[in-house]
């Protein structure tokens, strides 16, 4: 070997060089030591927070929203599970074919999918919410990393637009927006739970960071509504609104004895299962809209006169010459009826007669009756958007106003207030509280009129549907019924509007022992017919005839009791 490696004698290895190099290396390790302490103790909060942002997720555990049923347990609103597809963009790995398939399954364009996945700062984006469990399973079978499902509940309303205004609907976050869904949202929705977890990069849960907060399911709600009567009411009201080309309509049916609302219908309505283009259709007019009730208030005003004054059903009242001057104003009847009994005033709906009776009362007496019946104040029914109506303090009443109030002008009420006021005629003068929820025990009423007055008025109201009355079309085969019509000009921004009317009817059945009270209002009929006896009374008749049979209410009249003379028009009531 030519090569001789050993040359000891000339090699010098300075020891200071060795020490310097060793110190340099050890300094390197010392630096790392310091860096380690910095990262693992001083800087750890920042780093852990960054880590949490990457892989800790708070999962919402949705509470099951309570269902809403009618009084017989029929479903009006129920939640059923659906899946929402979401993604964690930083973890998504998707192939071109997967993207196409995903788009086809969910009906989304590839571009939109790209947009959703582009936001790498966010750990959570919805791809599509509320898809059926079947479809969700298909999406997951594509096996795209970073795409997940979230269980949610979708609300279904089996009765659809028939009960829309009572039940209401929820938004996409399961929050009540209208009706009972809104009013009782807290009760129905329960309490959502949550779970904070660490997930691995493929989305599997590794561990829980905190105790799981178990969701508390919402309570069920049993309404006083009877779905069958609700359907009937809806059908008949819709027919009337359609027939008279009305702008709107509203109807409410009460249990005469308990004050429970059995049906509450408004038109126009909407589909709560798919609440789009619902502008102006969500108003529950029965509760939220006030109107001048017109002559339907006459029965109440006349009862007040009988209660406080010296009037009996057969007391004669002079209504000639068919009009009456009070100061500068004049009150009209349609005809000169001459001398009418009190019963005749009700049957013919004489404004002059009713005004004369009421003017014999003190202002506070009439006011006190109206006030006790609940006009001008909200009811305790736990429902959103309730209007109070308008009852001015009696001290500001002028005589003309006291007179016009006898036939429902200068006072405004909701349809529900009006219907409730009529419970006094079904309960021997006691006013019943209203409930939209099913109640167990009969409520305690409030005596407004004496039993004598209430029963007399009930009997007089039976005359209204008989020949010579204003509401022949309210008659019901097999049952005696009573009621009162109302027709009024609508109140516009500049006073009464000439060509716009509200036709209404409030009645009770069977008259011998009332079970149901119904108030119907047809708003702005446009076919030229607008009297309450023409547009509203037939709705009452049709609903009562089916509902009473459905409830197996014993008949109190022979089957041939319906007497409608063929050529006779309804008596036109004074407006």
């Amino acid at each position, binding site marked *: *070997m030519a*090569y001789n*490696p*050993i*040359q*000891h004698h*000339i*090699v*010098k*290895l*300075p*020891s200071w*060089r*060795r020490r310097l*190099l*060793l110190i340099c*290396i*050890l300094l*390197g*390790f010392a*630096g*790392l*030591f310091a*860096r*380690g*302490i910095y*990262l*693992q*103790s001083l*800087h*750890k*909060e*920042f*780093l*852990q927070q*960054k*880590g949490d942002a*990457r*892989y800790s997720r708070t999962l919402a555990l949705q509470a099951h929203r309570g269902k809403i049923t009618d009084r017989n347990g029929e479903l009006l609103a129920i939640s059923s599970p659906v899946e929402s597809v979401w993604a964690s963009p*930083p973890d998504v790995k998707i192939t071109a074919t997967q993207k196409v398939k995903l788009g086809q399954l969910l009906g989304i364009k590839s571009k939109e999918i790209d947009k959703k996945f582009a936001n*790498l*700062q966010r750990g959570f984006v919805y791809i599509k919410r509320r898809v059926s469990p079947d479809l969700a399973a298909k999406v997951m079978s594509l096996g795209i990393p970073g795409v997940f499902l979230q269980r949610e509940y979708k609300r279904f309303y089996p009765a659809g637009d028939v009960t829309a205004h009572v039940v209401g609907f929820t938004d996409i976050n399961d929050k009540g927006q209208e009706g009972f869904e809104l009013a009782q949202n807290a009760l129905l929705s329960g309490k959502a739970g949550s779970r904070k977890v*660490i997930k*691995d*990069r*493929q989305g599997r849960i*590794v561990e829980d960071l905190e105790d799981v907060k178990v969701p508390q399911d919402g309570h069920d709600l049993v309404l006083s509504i009877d779905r069958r009567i609700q359907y009937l009411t809806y059908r008949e009201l819709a027919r009337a609104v359609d027939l008279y080309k009305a702008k709107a309509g509203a109807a409410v049916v009460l249990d005469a004895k308990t004050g429970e609302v059995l049906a509450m219908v408004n038109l126009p309505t909407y589909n709560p299962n798919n609440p789009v283009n619902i502008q102006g259709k969500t108003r529950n007019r029965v509760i939220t809209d006030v109107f001048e009730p017109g002559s339907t208030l006459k029965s109440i005003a006349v009862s007040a006169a009988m209660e406080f004054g010296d009037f009996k059903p057969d007391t004669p009242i002079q209504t000639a010459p068919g009009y009456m001057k009070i100061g500068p104003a004049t009150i009209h009847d349609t005809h000169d009826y001459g001398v009418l009994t009190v019963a005749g005033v009700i049957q013919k709906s004489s404004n002059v007669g009713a005004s004369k009776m009421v003017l014999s009362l003190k202002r506070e007496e009439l006011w006190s009756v109206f006030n006790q019946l609940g006009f001008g104040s909200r009811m305790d029914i736990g429902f959103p958007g309730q209007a109070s109506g308008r009852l001015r303090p009696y001290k500001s009443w002028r005589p003309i106003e006291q007179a016009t109030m006898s036939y429902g002008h200068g006072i405004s009420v909701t349809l529900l207030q009006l219907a409730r006021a009529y419970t006094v005629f079904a309960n021997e003068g006691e006013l019943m509280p209203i409930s939209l929820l099913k109640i167990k025990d009969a409520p305690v009423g409030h005596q407004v009129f004496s039993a004598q007055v209430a029963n007399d008025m009930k009997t007089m109201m039976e005359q209204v549907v008989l020949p010579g009355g204003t509401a022949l079309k309210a008659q019901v085969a097999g049952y005696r019924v009573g009621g009162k019509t109302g027709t009024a000009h609508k109140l516009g921004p500049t006073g009464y509007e000439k060509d716009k009317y509200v036709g209404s009817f409030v009645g009770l059945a069977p008259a011998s022992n009332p079970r149901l009270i119904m108030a119907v209002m047809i708003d702005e009929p446009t076919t030229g017919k607008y009297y309450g006896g023409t547009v509203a009374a037939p709705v009452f008749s049709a609903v009562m005839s089916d509902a009473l049979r459905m409830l197996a209410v014993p008949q109190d009249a022979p089957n041939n009791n319906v007497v409608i003379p063929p050529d006779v028009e309804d008596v036109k009531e004074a407006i």
Partner: protein
Amino acid sequence: MLAPVMHSRERMNAASYDQMLLWVTLILLGLGLVMVYSASIAIAEADKAVGHQSTYYLIRQAIFIVVGVMAAFVTFQVPVAGWQKMAPYLFLLGLFLLVLVLIPGVGRNVNGSQRWLSLFVINLQPSELMKLFAAMYVADYAVRKAPQMDSIVKGFLPMVAVMVLVGFLLLREPDFGAFAVIAAISISILWLGGINVKIFVALLALLPVAIYVLIVSSPYRMQRVIGFMDPWADPYGKGYQLSHALIAFGRGEWFGVGLGASVEKLLYLPEAHTDFLLAVIAEELGFVGVLTVLGLFCWIVIRAFGIGKEAVANERYFAALLAQGLGVWMGVQGIINIGVNMGVLPTKGLTLPLLSFGGSGILANCIAMAVLLRIDFENRRLQKGLPA
């Protein structure tokens, strides 16, 4: 040639080899095995290519360690003088392998780096062996050229030429990390071997320039440097790996989240079982684990320099330079790897010696430690008046 077994009989007098160094080595190998398993379970289970087998990396690392220890045992039998004689030829073999790995079809390309040679069942990474061969070659060179160490033309430039060649080959793969380690070993040995201080200072001055040129010339290196400067600027892109490594440190705190409880290893942190094993150690065992690793590496470096000093005392200059070169190797590669994990150095493809998963790395590290132990073994024999 004497086998260490024979000397176990002399244990009564004084240990014939550095038992502590051996234990430190074995502890690092054992810790590495446990942590490689912990860090790789999720990676292996998610990987179709390894058959979703959770013990895939554990089994292989165990085999590597067994093979490495066996190779170390054989290595220990070779006298240091033998290594000195073989040094130039081993270096040529290393160069040959580095050329071979670049030939398309012969070298295997993984993740854009052509670093592996397929040899039947195992993949050999020549750059790992080259670190050992370079240390031997430069140590031998420094001893041979000792009289010319002051001369630029005769002492310094030939070595520069050799290093440029090695650097050229390594950067073709590319394997910047291996080149950095080999350069550090070579410069350190030249420094210890008495190179002219002026030349050395000039070299140190040129180094930043060279590194800058290398970084700017390659887009992938540039990306890594940017990611290193501020990992939170683009934590889902360039800074992804580093930000996850740092989170692992932060989560570990002082005592760690517990063995096996790392979340970062659940596919968040790439290369958790190789280059970023220390991050998993930091997360699961906390600063205590990191401190242990730092301490053990410091021990190796300090012992290597101590062994070198004793060799100098015995006038065994090649052994002295080689021992210290091996110490620089372990120290520098450890510092770079840990520094990368902690975000103080830009990301390179460098493993943590003796710990990270990797056959060639474990084999080369085991052999290096055996050579170190052998040098010490011969030192002790000479001190007892026995022949080396």
